[in-house]
């Protein structure tokens, strides 16, 4: 009913290889983009923008990065937060040490630094896989956190090791209101999500998936292992690095290495597991679930303010959160993205399934 495809014919190669082949999808995405680019910045409150949407978008980007590595290329990583930290600290140093450095260039260079570090820690992936690789990336997590705490140079010798973001502007336009920060984040995330979607559909994405599904077979059909795997690490770390820089500059305005600890890596891993491994949409759904659900539960809990002890309420939130994660994993182990796909298929034939 809603997804009736009858009458929609593909008559050219371009139409066949479009991202959204169904008209309904195109309309939906256009409406979503219009809503998020035009309506939300104008109408939403400061709280919705900087309390909910910006963290959601930034963590979606980090999840997207991990999804490229783990979901598409099949390389399990527990170091996403470390690569975020590299991006954040590198961007900070570019901005502080090179006055006049444009923000977007600094973000890009920060991402590149993260990519380089990612490649370095991705080298073991050429020899080891699975859980063993996860442990090797765990080393990145601990090593990088230690480096940023140990060497004061990275935080400009601040006595507490906490970096605080200098004022930001793009082409002379200051980024200091929640709406402008939101638009900056949204533009970057939308652009990078589009790039990720296209990479996943292009030859590089197919090479990743071939490696993921069986690396020996992939090698036999002529996919260069070194290039493919390291490219996955580089691009994934680039995404995480940009996300980390945005997290530090746009969301918090300050950051220390401890903000990117192992918990953050796990949080991002949970996002892609719940959202859907190997799915662009899944990264966003997973981030929404992990970021928004605790806040939602806390807001609902405030309704009972005074009636129930706050201590109990806070713990109840955690229990509900954990319970819901288990529920979703049992009901749909392939993540929320798969759930959405099933809904779409059902809607195609609704209301006459037979």
């Amino acid at each position, binding site marked *: 009913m809603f997804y009736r495809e009858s009458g929609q014919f593909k008559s050219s190669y371009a139409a066949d290889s479009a991202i959204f082949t169904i008209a309904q999808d195109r309309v939906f995405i256009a409406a979503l983009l219009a809503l998020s680019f035009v309506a939300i910045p104008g109408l939403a409150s*400061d709280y919705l923008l900087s*309390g909910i949407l910006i963290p959601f978008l930034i963590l979606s980007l980090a999840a997207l990065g991990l999804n490229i590595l783990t979901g598409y290329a099949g390389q399990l990583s527990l170091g996403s937060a470390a690569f975020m930290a590299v991006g954040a600290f590198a961007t900070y140093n570019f901005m502080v040490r090179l006055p006049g450095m444009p923000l977007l260039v600094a973000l890009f260079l920060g991402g590149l630094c993260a990519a380089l570090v990612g490649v370095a820690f991705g080298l073991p992936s050429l020899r080891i896989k699975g859980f063993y690789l996860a442990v090797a990336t765990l080393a990145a997590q601990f090593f990088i956190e230690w480096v940023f*705490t140990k060497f004061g140079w990275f935080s400009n010798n601040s006595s*507490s*090791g906490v970096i605080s973001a*200098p*004022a930001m502007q793009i082409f002379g336009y200051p980024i200091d209101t929640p709406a402008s920060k939101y638009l900056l984040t949204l533009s970057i995330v939308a652009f990078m999500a589009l790039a990720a979607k296209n990479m996943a559909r292009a030859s590089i994405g197919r090479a990743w998936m071939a490696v993921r599904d069986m690396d020996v077979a992939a090698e036999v059909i002529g996919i260069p292992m070194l290039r493919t795997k390291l490219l996955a690490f580089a691009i994934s770390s680039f995404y995480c690095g940009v996300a980390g820089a945005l997290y530090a500059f746009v969301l918090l305005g300050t950051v220390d*290495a401890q903000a990117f600890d192992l918990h953050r890596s796990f949080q991002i891993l949970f996002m892609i597991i719940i959202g859907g491994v190997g799915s662009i949409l899944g990264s966003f759904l997973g981030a929404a679930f992990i970021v928004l659900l605790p806040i939602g539960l806390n807001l609902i809990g*405030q309704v009972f303010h005074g009636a129930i002890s706050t201590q109990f309420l*806070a713990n109840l939130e955690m229990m509900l959160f954990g319970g819901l994660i288990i529920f979703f994993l049992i009901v749909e182990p392939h993540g929320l993205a798969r759930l959405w796909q099933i809904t779409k298929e059902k809607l195609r034939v609704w209301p006459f399934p037979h």
Partner: protein
Amino acid sequence: MKQTIIAASLVLATIAGSALAADQFIPIPSYRVGPYASGGAKFYGGMIDYLNYVNMKEGGVGGVKLTYEECETEYKNDRGVECYERLKAKNGGASAFNFMSTGITYAVMDRADKDKIPLMTMGFGRADAQDGSAFKYTFPLITSYWSQATAKIQFIGQRLGGMDKLRGKKIVNLYHGSAYGKETIPVLDAMAKKHGFELKHIEVPAPGTEQQSQWLDIRRERPDFVVLRSWGVMTPAALKSAQKVGYPREQIVSNWWGGSEEDAIAAGEAAKGYIAGSFALDGKQFPVIQDIEKVVYGAGKGNLSDKGFIGTVNYNRGVVSGILMVEAIRAAQKKYGAKTLTGDQIRWGMENINIDAKRQQALGVTDMFPQVRTSCQNHEGSGYTRFMQWDGKDWKPVSGWIKADTSVTLPLIKASVEKYVQEKGITLRDCNAEK
């Protein structure tokens, strides 16, 4: 005629009603789950209890009722920012935030500046924020980390029998491998230079559960004192490791985040004799604590789930935080009138807190925390630290209130502020011009 009178009285009644309904909103960004929940629940419990106590006892501040709303931060920076954004404009605007977390405070400092809402950073960083001309909306009330670090060395001097006895002595600074842990290194270095003792910094990687090799190092070094800068699980782990290598706990001096019941009890027998700093003494001997128990808990309105926690270190700290908040509101009301005040007006109040001996007596807090007098320039207001020793069951004071060595802290603050001002590109306030 009659109708006019009724109408007029109705109008008056509504005006009076709305005046009575005026209230002052205090956001409570608490953490009751997560790794620091045990301290957070007591601290914010104490703070909420004091606000309720003022409401029940005096009907609010100057007739303005205090309202509050909680938001769970889990001690995480991103959740803290979310809570800040959620609560800052609610119910007529937030008075002041006390996050009890250095990370969250750093993250919201720029926002608070822009929104003109003061941040209370009582007993934690950043230390240089006591310079109110650069940090207009940040208040490290009572004592900052740097003031405390100088007090620690002075306390060690007292123990040795005079500051001149420090010369040639050896002190180890055992610190948590985090931004927090490293914050006092420059101050301790300056103190070592001034008093001529040998200082060795030893890092414990976060979270600090593993300290075997560090304590073996300490045993080899044979320092006269160990200055502990610990947090969470690091404290009991340090005490147990010290016991293992046979280092006397009487020579370990920690800062106040290692000085609560949770820290000492977890180490069991190993904690006996251990010394920690404090900016708010524990115990129920203070009239204000006794009165809260009678008034608030007597009416069944207490916030703690277990009454037994009343009078613990973290609970008392929460009460002190509530007292300072209320005193700031009182001061601001004197200038702006008894009505709902904005964050910027509360900021003025915080810069004009004056809790002298007489006021302490009236509040029932004599000796619970030092006298506090803030100004536009001085956002710390005191700089005194007191030291307590764990006797196996309770914390017992072992010193008077020790004043920070400002000859050491002030130049460091000045240098740090200069760097901050340059990095941020801000202009300093002129405190002499403001009244």
